[in-house]
């Protein structure tokens, strides 16, 4: 198996596909890479430099950190300042600007903030510190949410009553439909996030192709996956075929992962959620169900999402909906850089602005 998986990085085949891509000039197409990891992969593999003029890649809102509203970070910061609370988080959130501070700043000021690789690691911390409350900052789409759900289920099983999670988890379908249904967005095709689809299957992609006439390709993340996905999608669009191709079948089944979905919806239920850049989207968020409310940090601490302020001049909302490229933002590369980010698109490691900054050729 490792040898087969390595072939998805084969340089000779990559170059052949790259040549094909280079020569794919023709009718202009606008493709949205929904997923931040695809945005990064496209830059990292140098694919941007291969695209003909007529293939336009637009970055989408599939960056959980980027679409998390400032108010969530502010709630987390408030918890940082509470007594006997240990904050556990993915590293991705550490430098996201809240109102006036970040998790990194709070940690520097003495807050107990710990990076974990898995929400399940937060349970070990809770077990080892029974006198403290351990809060896990739960962000992520359908790839991550089942793992967060598992953490709650295990906490219940193990009787870890000092563990809870602060949910900002979201689901993709509603946001995708907003974009697909937006006539101004001009997207001709979607490159679908392979790992979200590993959980939810291909039905969302098929529904969008059917209802909105926008074709898509479910794509993996290795160089050959991304190259071939863009080629296939471009050809589908130009042939006016409103279909969905699953090019990540080694991991994406049509039905997704029902076990994971089952766990996800055992713990979470849909709720309205605010997406940075989109505003409120009904039923697009995930809230902990009442039966698990003792593990719901919003309830445990009596927190509410206050309306946070978008930083002055920050164009993250326009970037996230694919309306502008980062270089059009006045703050890009000047007041807003990875070292001192103003908006989430710059601070998230896969945010569109961070990708443009890191990999783009800045004069």
């Amino acid at each position: 198996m490792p040898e087969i998986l390595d072939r998805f990085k084969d340089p000779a085949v990559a170059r052949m596909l790259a040549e094909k891509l280079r020569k794919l000039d023709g009718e202009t197409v606008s493709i949205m890479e929904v997923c931040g990891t695809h945005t990064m992969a496209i830059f990292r593999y140098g694919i941007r430099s291969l695209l003909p003029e007529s293939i336009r890649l637009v970055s989408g809102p599939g960056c959980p950190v980027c679409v998390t509203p400032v108010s969530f970070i502010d709630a987390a910061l408030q918890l940082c300042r509470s007594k006997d609370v240990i904050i556990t988080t993915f590293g991705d959130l550490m430098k996201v600007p809240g109102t006036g501070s970040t998790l990194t700043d709070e940690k520097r000021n003495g807050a107990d903030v710990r990076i974990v690789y898995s929400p399940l690691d937060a349970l070990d911390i809770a077990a080892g510190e029974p006198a403290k409350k351990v809060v896990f900052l739960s962000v992520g789409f359908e790839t991550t949410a089942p793992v967060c759900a598992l953490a709650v289920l295990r906490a219940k099983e193990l009787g870890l009553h000092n563990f809870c999670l602060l949910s900002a988890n979201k689901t993709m379908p509603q946001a995708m439909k907003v974009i697909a249904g937006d006539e101004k967005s001009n997207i001709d095709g979607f490159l679908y996030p392979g790992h979200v689809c590993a959980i939810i299957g291909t039905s969302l992609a098929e529904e969008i192709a059917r209802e909105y006439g926008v074709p898509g390709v479910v794509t993996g993340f290795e160089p050959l996956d991304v190259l071939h996905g863009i080629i296939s999608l471009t050809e589908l669009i130009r042939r006016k075929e409103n279909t969905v191709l699953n090019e990540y079948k080694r991991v994406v089944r049509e039905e997704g992962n029902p076990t994971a979905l089952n766990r996800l919806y055992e713990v979470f239920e849909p709720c309205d959620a605010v997406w940075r850049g989109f505003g409120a989207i009904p039923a697009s968020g995930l809230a902990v169900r009442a039966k698990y409310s003792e593990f719901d940090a919003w309830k445990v601490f009596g927190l509410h999402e206050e309306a946070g302020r978008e930083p002055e001049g920050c164009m993250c909302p326009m970037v996230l909906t694919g309306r502008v490229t980062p270089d059009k933002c006045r703050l890009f590369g000047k007041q807003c850089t990875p070292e001192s980010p103003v908006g989430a698109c710059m601070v998230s490691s896969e945010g569109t602005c961070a990708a443009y900054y890191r990999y783009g050729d800045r004069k």
Partner: protein
Amino acid sequence: MCLGIPGKVLKIEGKDAVAEIMGAERRISVELLKDVKTGDYVLIHAGCAIQVVDEAEALDTIKLFEELNEVANA
């Protein structure tokens, strides 16, 4: 938005397993998988296996990708 890496299941211990990822090892949860056995390759995200990697499909897909290669060369 999802870093996932394939790993080989070395041994299963209840709801968890030890996986080998390119020579490094880590404990992961396999609770989200209906059927998994030692020797399977799984996609690992945030310390959890979220799907079994299907070898036959992998082979089919790589042949599809490489086909373009042959057509281009023909």
